[in-house]
């Protein structure tokens, strides 16, 4: 089918106003927060599952690729339409369909902003736990696609631990439900399979999530350290003690400075590292645990521990952390974030090596990361307008991920593989492993129409 005819058919499905194909629109739907850009052939903004189903069926019949997109905050190229085709933008499917307080479940469309869901359930005394730093703009569909994490996932688990069921559109447009409100669904765990599949297996059009009670009390501490090593040792020591804080977030000097220039979160600019340690849960006993944490900090040579006195002070500390990625772009226009994970005990050693890699490639690297679960985020700063520098950044990024794998970790904590880390998949999986994953992919997507070129490297390579 000619492209114009395809666009016409799409207009019949979603309406004239919600099919975009101007030169400008196609450029604008070619990016996320990663480096690569590709143009789709057409963009649709559907209103409901039925429309999505019809769009996917048409794409299947015409052998056109389909790529789903939410707010495109992703860091590994997930929604970049590598092979062109149709981009489905979920901005209009942004309704919270149900909040079931008694059963502690919510049903949402994929375009719902994560924070909007959190705010809505908070009014009913409940909480949706995963809290990606981009929560104020990221969509639930995107969180499902990338299996997003966030600071509080140390205690509560990542997105997949909170998804009870999905409505998905299969490759030929058929719509199926993979779960629902009930726990322990029998049969294959299709929900678990779909979460984190980055739109390569199906298109999610409805999400049922688990809600939990809001904690009775929250206490937020800021530990200020003279060395990264001391901060890392503190993290290991806290966990070793059997304490599971809600968050254990670390930022190094470069990031601290960038954040302070941006929002004045009250991090001391001469410190080498800060830790945001947050406790939540029952009020009883919290003081005791906080005291114990402070003791551990002191035993690991902390310079000072500050305690947020109220909600305002707590918010300021978190604003700094959530804005850390954006803040470093005050230093250089671009950053690449290496989302590797390592065993906690390896943190000091790996961070030391990361610094060395920065020196070796002559690139500034800042660190802001989920220390509690060993999920690093070295931010390599550069200017993508400098091609030579950009090439060095890619090499350094690969080297850092290799380092994580060699330390017993892996190549992605929460940002997905996308098109960024196809090559690095071979650090983790053997060719046989990859071939097995391809069989799974082919079972769901026999024509290879869903977000082609992502997650799985081609078998030839």
């Amino acid at each position: 089918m000619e492209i114009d005819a395809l666009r016409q058919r799409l207009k019949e499905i979603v309406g004239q106003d919600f099919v975009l194909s101007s030169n400008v629109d196609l450029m604008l739907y070619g990016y996320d927060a990663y480096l690569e850009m590709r143009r789709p052939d057409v963009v649709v903004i559907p209103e409901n599952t039925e429309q999505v189903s019809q769009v996917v069926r048409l794409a299947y019949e015409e052998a056109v690729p389909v790529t789903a997109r939410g707010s495109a905050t992703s860091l590994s190229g997930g929604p970049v339409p590598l092979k062109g085709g149709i981009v489905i933008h979920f901005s209009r499917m942004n309704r919270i369909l149900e909040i079931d307080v008694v059963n502690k479940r919510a049903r949402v469309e994929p375009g719902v902003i994560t924070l909007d869901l959190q705010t809505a359930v908070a009014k009913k005394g409940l909480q949706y736990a995963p809290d990606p730093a981009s929560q104020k703009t990221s969509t639930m569909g995107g969180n499902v696609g990338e299996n997003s994490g966030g600071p509080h996932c140390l205690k509560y688990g990542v997105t997949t631990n909170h998804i009870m069921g999905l409505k998905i559109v299969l490759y030929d447009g058929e719509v199926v439900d993979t779960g629902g409100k009930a726990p322990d669904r029998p049969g294959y765990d299709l929900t678990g399979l779909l979460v984190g599949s980055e739109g390569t297996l199906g298109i999610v059009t409805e999400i049922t999530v688990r809600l939990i009670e809001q904690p009775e009390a929250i206490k937020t501490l800021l530990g200020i350290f003279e060395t990264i090593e001391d901060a890392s040792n503190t993290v290991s020591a806290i966990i070793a003690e059997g304490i599971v804080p809600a968050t254990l977030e670390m930022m190094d000097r470069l990031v601290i400075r960038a954040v302070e220039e941006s929002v004045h979160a009250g991090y001391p600019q001469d410190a080498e590292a800060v830790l945001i340690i947050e406790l939540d849960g029952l009020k009883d006993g919290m003081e005791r645990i906080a005291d114990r944490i402070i003791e551990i900090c002191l035993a690991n040579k902390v310079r000072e521990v500050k305690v947020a006195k109220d909600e305002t002070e707590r918010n300021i500390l978190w604003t700094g952390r959530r804005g850390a990625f954006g803040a470093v772009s005050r230093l250089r226009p671009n950053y690449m974030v290496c989302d590797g994970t390592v065993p906690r005990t390896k943190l000091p050693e790996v961070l030391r090596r990361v610094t060395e890699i920065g020196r070796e490639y002559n690139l500034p690297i800042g660190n802001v990361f989920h220390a509690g679960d060993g999920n690093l985020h070295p931010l390599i700063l550069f200017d993508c307008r400098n091609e030579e520098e950009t090439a060095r950044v890619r090499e350094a990024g690969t080297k850092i991920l290799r380092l994580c794998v060699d330390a017993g970790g892996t190549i992605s904590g929460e940002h997905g593989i996308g098109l960024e880390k196809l090559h690095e998949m071979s650090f983790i999986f053997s060719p046989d492993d990859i071939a097995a994953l391809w069989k799974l992919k082919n079972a769901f997507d026999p024509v290879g129409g869903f977000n082609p070129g992502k997650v799985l490297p081609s078998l030839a390579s």
Partner: protein
Amino acid sequence: MNIVQLKKLQYEEVAKCTRCGFCLPNCPTYAVRRNEASTPRGRNAITRAIIEGRLELSDDLAEAIFTCLGCGACTKACFPAVNTKDSVFSDRACLTEVHANPKIFEKLSEALNEYHNISEDDNEDRAEWQEYLKDVPGEFIEKDHAEIVYFVGCVASFFPMAQKIPADFATIMYHAGLDFTILGGEEWCCGFPLIGAGMPEKVAELKAHNLEKIKRVGAKKAVFSCPSCLHTWKHLYDTDIELLHSSQLLRDLVGQNKLDLKPVELKVTYHDPCDLGRNTGVFEEPREVIKSIPGIEFVELPNNRNMSVCCGGGGNVEMVAPDLSAAIAQRKIEEILSTETKTVISSCQQCLRTIVTNARRQNIELNAMDLTQLVLKSLSQK
């Protein structure tokens, strides 16, 4: 403006955009249009693509570039603080250069050139609002020399719905014993609409005229009830005289006990105009004035101060996309109603006009008042 100049002015600025998308929920146009072209991130990407030669300057860009409200909310949500508003206005100047701008702006420019006001009225009629004055002698309003010049602005001069504002403000200043005057027919448009129209170079003549007239009056201060006039003066006019907004002057009068404020039993909320609040930094003065009136019950809007959401009247959007402007106004009205107040106070005639017009269209019962009107109401109570 050509692409070389655009690059010089805006390339480093838009290069700071990492496409993180934190601006999306803050943009009123995205909330309505739901497409990437209506996001600050998208607009930054367009500017960058123009500079890098990946996009031609063409009519295709007009929809994205001429629908930015210039409200600045995106910059407040942006950690590298990319100034999207100014880049977009530069883009507009580039599109204007190649005649890919909306034709309505050419008409606007011709009107300003011929009439020196935006409503194509005889500029001598600028003082028409004085018909609303009750007990202020005319000689107090138009003097050759005065300490303060009140720069009324086009909307308040010519649009009947807004003409009560200068009348009330002049009445308050008169009763407070201030030595002030207006420029009358010698007040020309400040040039603000031309910046949003992508014709910044045409501001020069208007600016020179206004500066010359104000100098002749020998004024030490210029006071504005229009935040956009004030913003234009502050940023584009090079002058040593003190520039302040009516809300700041009112706050000073309250502080000096020069206003005999009497009780007004009313529950009100306050809408921060973008050009007064976020873009000029005046947040507290209007609130202090409101709270100084006995009997007032004051509630904040959910999105206030730096997070205030544009009324839909910014950036000349109303002229090119009235449906978008109206839909944004509708959301503003819903936000106001969510506070369970029936009265919204603002300090901008344009915001009030946008809000009132759209409320009327929908038969929504909503009272919208300028701060000066609220103060005069209080002064007039028995």
